[in-house]
C-alpha cells in the first residue's frame, strides 16, 4: 500500500515544481504536468534527497520514476515511509 507515502511525495513534488499542492494529484506525472520536465525532475530528486535526509540515494530506480505514484511506491519500498 503506498497511500501513506503519497501525500508527503505530493508535497515534495509540489514544492519542487513550485505548484499549489492541489495541482499535484496522485495521478500527476511527467506526462501530465508541463512543469515536470527534465529540470523539474532534477529539482524533485534534490528535494526528495533533502526531505529524506540523503537516504534516497539508496533506492534503485528512483531517477527513472517520473510519476507521483511510482515515486511513492519506491519511497515506501525503500522503507523511508
Amino acid at each position, binding site marked *: 500500500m503506498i497511500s501513506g507515502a503519497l501525500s508527503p511525495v505530493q508535497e515534495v513534488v509540489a514544492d519542487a515544481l513550485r505548484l499549489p499542492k492541489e495541482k499535484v494529484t496522485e495521478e500527476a506525472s511527467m506526462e501530465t504536468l508541463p512543469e515536470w520536465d*527534465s*529540470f523539474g*525532475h*532534477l529539482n524533485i*530528486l*534534490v528535494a526528495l*534527497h*533533502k526531505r529524506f535526509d*540523503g537516504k*534516497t*540515494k*539508496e533506492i534503485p530506480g*528512483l*531517477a*527513472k520514476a517520473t510519476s507521483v505514484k511510482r515515486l511513492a511506491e519506491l519511497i515506501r519500498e525503500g522503507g523511508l515511509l
Partner: protein
Amino acid sequence: MAQAAGRFHARISAIEYALPQRSEENSALQADNPDWDLGKIYRKTGVSRRYVAAPGQTAADLCVEAAEKLFASGAARREEISALLFCTQSPDYALPTTACVLQDRLGLSTRTLAFDFNLGCSGFVYGLAIAGSLIEGGLCDCALLLCGETYTKYISPNDRTCRPIFSDAGSATVIERSARPLIGPFDLGTDGSGFCNLMVPNSGARQQGGGNGQVKDAHLKMDGPSVFMFTLSAVPQNVQDLLKKAGASQEAVDLFVFHQASRVVLDSIAENLKLPPEKIIRDLDQVGNTVSATIPIALRRAQEQGKLKMGQRLLLCGFGVGYSWGSCLVEWEPRT
C-alpha cells in the same frame, strides 16, 4: 572493489591550461533553441560560458598548447619529462596512441614512456595515481599529465541536457618526485552498471541500431537524473572513505576541489557533506564542464587568483562517466 592506498613521494609541480579561441555564452543557446528557458538552465548548471574547439582542433592540440605554455613559463623543462600520460575520450585516432604523437609534437625524449588512458571526469585523479605510482616505482622522475576533451564535438546542438554544460579544454600538469610524500592517499572506484547513462553510442567497436537505412546515433547521451543520483550515492561516501584511510577529518582539509560537474551537483555534494562554502573551489561559470580538465583548470585558476597557499591540504575528487570516481589528498607545494 578497486582501491589504491598509500602516499607517493611526488608533488604537483606546475599546471597550465588552454581554452579554444571561440566561446559561447548562454544567449547563443537561445538563438539556436528559442524555446529553452535559459534562466532555468543557468540555475541548474551554473555555466554562463562554454568553450568550443574549432573544426579540426582536437583535445591533443589543446593539450599541446597547455604544455607549451607551461614550458614557456619556465615552470618545467621538457627535457625533464620521462613519462607522458594523456587522459582523453576524444583521441586523435583509435590507433596509434595519441600520447605517442604528442611525444613527438612536444619534442620529448624518445626515452619517455607514453600512453593514453580513456577516462572522463575522474581522469585527473586517476592520472595523479598513475603518475605517482610510476614515480614511486622508479619508472620515472617527472611526469607530464595531459587532460583534454572536445566533448562539444559529440553533442547535438539541440541537446538541452548536455549542450549548456560541457566545454572544451586542454590541461598540462607536471608531477615530479619529491622528498616528502605530498600526493595521496587515494580512494578509487568503478561501477560499470551505469555505463549507458553517459555515453556516446556507436563511437567504437560496439555498434548498435542503424537498421533499415537509419543513420546510427553517435551523439553524447546523458541521463541527467541517473547520473545525479549516482553522484549523490558515490561521492560523499568516497570522500568519507578517503578521509578515514588518511586518518583525517574534513576540518583538516583546507580546500575541496571537486570535478566541476554542474551547480546542482556541487550544491548537493556540499550540502550532503556539510562543507562550508569558503572551503569549496567553484570555477564553473566562465569555463563550463571540461570533463577531466576541470580539476587542474580550477587549481590553476585558483592559484592565479591567489586562493592557494603553499602547504595547504587539498582534497581532489573526480566522478562521472563510466561510472568512475576517485579522490585523493594533495599537499600544495608547486615549484612556483
